[in-house]
């Protein structure tokens, strides 16, 4: 990769004669202007060194210009600085020629010169080389350079205001990671920048329960309260998104992911008997109504019929509760479908990121249980119903 980059730059980078960046300088008008005032700096990437007296000029202006640019290599740092002057004044484009010249200058410069040159270059140019210079500065202990790198990568991810599905996910992730480093180092403005970058990426803006999805997406798991309700929302979300994903994209749902999900859901499923008990008053009410009906003339059915009907109602309630728990909350499901609509594909970077984050969240929650609140010392024995996976370790 690097080899390709460097091989690519070696020849054209130094081909300063008439590159696209210098077309203006190569136009006849520019050449005439040059001829008229040879002492003026030109709109070339490398500035013109003065021709020493007694040295013959070349007849062809392009040749003369190229020779002078090569002669400027006698002082590479000054040549790079002057080339950047030209770019800053809008008289040349930052291109491969500038990069090659400044690479040479940086290689030749002493530490102080190199730091100055690098700072100016990376402020002026957006390129992979400039990103590398930001990284050099950041690794060298300059905290603000992490923020600079974050902004650089953010700009590389795509123009401001672009549809966030069109952004380059890796660059955006890199920008966030760099901004996070800046935040950790206490760089001013870094926290705002990080929040902005996260808003730029987050695919579920405006969804119901957005803070929950945001915390999962950005892996701030410790911000999520571990409650049965949250587990149901997350379960609904996961099942919603995974249903669509596995329907459209075979292989997205892995054995490991399913296992983690099952383990995560186990305490929720363990709630089923409890919820059924909660539903019992309703069952009792219905049963009492049936009994009253029976008394009011449906004598043929007798007590057996009433009990049978009661059991039927009880089982219906139990099934309802179990289904509600198994499929998770409908808010969660909706958000899961919204995620799929937003990222288009679970295999898209942001879709994969959410699925990865969910898997991590399940692992993060491994061995934790909302059924072990400190307030109730004798924990209710969670009877794993058939087909349910329980924590064996508990």
């Amino acid at each position, binding site marked *: 990769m*690097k080899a390709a980059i460097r091989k690519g730059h070696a020849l054209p980078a130094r*081909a300063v004669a008439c590159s696209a960046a210098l077309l203006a300088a190569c136009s006849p008008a520019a050449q005439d202007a040059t001829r008229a005032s040879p002492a003026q700096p030109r709109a070339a990437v490398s500035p013109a060194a003065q021709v020493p007296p007694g040295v013959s000029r070349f007849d062809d202006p392009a040749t003369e210009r190229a*020779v002078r640019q090569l002669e400027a290599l006698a002082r590479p740092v000054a040549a790079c600085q002057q080339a950047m002057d030209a770019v800053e004044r809008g008289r040349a484009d930052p291109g491969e020629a500038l990069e090659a010249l400044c690479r040479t200058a940086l290689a030749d410069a002493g530490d102080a010169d190199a730091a100055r040159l690098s700072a100016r270059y990376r402020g002026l140019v957006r390129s992979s080389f400039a990103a590398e210079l930001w990284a050099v500065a950041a690794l060298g202990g300059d905290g603000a350079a992490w923020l600079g790198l974050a902004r650089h*990568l953010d700009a590389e991810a795509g123009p401001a205001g672009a549809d966030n599905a069109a952004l380059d996910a890796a660059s955006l992730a890199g920008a966030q990671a760099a901004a996070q480093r800046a935040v950790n180092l206490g760089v001013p403005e870094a926290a705002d920048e990080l929040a902005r970058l996260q808003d730029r990426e987050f695919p579920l803006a405006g969804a119901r329960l957005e803070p929950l999805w945001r915390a999962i997406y950005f892996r701030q798991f410790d911000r999520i309260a571990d409650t049965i309700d949250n587990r149901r929302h997350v379960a609904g979300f996961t099942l919603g998104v995974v249903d669509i994903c596995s329907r459209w994209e075979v292989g997205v749902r892995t054995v490991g992911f399913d296992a983690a999900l099952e383990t995560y859901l186990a305490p929720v499923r363990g709630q089923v008997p409890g919820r059924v008990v909660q539903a019992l008053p309703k069952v009792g009410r219905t049963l009492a109504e049936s009994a009253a009906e029976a008394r009011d003339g449906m004598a043929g059915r007798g007590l057996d019929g009433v009990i049978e009907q009661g059991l039927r109602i009880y089982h219906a309630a139990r099934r309802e509760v179990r289904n509600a728990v198994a499929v998770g909350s409908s808010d969660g499901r909706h958000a899961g479908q919204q995620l799929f609509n937003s990222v288009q594909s679970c295999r898209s970077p942001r879709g994969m*990121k959410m699925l990865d984050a969910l898997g991590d969240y399940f*692992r993060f929650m491994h061995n934790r249980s909302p059924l072990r609140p400190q307030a109730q010392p004798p924990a209710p024995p969670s009877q794993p119903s058939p087909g349910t996976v329980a924590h064996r370790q508990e």
Partner: protein
Amino acid sequence: MADTPRTALLATVLATMLVCPAALALAPAAASLQSRATDTAAAPAAMPADPAGVLADLQAGHLQAAEAALHGWTTAAPDDAARRRRLLALVQLQRQLAARLLARADADLQQRRLPQAVERLEAALALDDSLAQPPRATALLAARSRLWQARDAVARCMPPRDAACMDQAVRAAHALAPRDPALALLALQASAWWTPGQQRRPAPVEGTTSSR
């Protein structure tokens, strides 16, 4: 045998130059071929001045070819001789700068600053590609290929988003160059799915299909 086409080519170039000034545009390319041919010849034959060809060689770092071409120039006018001296001075300038950078690259390598050494080696080779010939830069070239291989190994883990591969490759690259900016950038870009040193392989959960 080999001389015949070369002479014919030279004659053609000269003829077209006499006949049509517009054909001058073609001349540098042809003469550049010629300069490469003289590179291999023992004694360079006299030939017309071709600054564009020499400049192309200089810009590509082919200092030996540029120098050989310059020595073969016929310099009728005093101006021509002066221009040749100017270009020869350029060859010297590039050669000295390249040598200086290579010496600093050696020093970097001895101080185990691999990325800087490779950066300086690259800059030196861009100025004078003959430095790549053994044995001058053998150690540096080997170091460069080690660094590139380490970076490539990391880059290969990224499309499949393989965290275990990433852990291993980054550890190896860190051992080689602890503060490699290219590696830092790769790691940042993988941050959506990879956290250094975090075992992402889930422990199999008993009683589920993953524990089979």
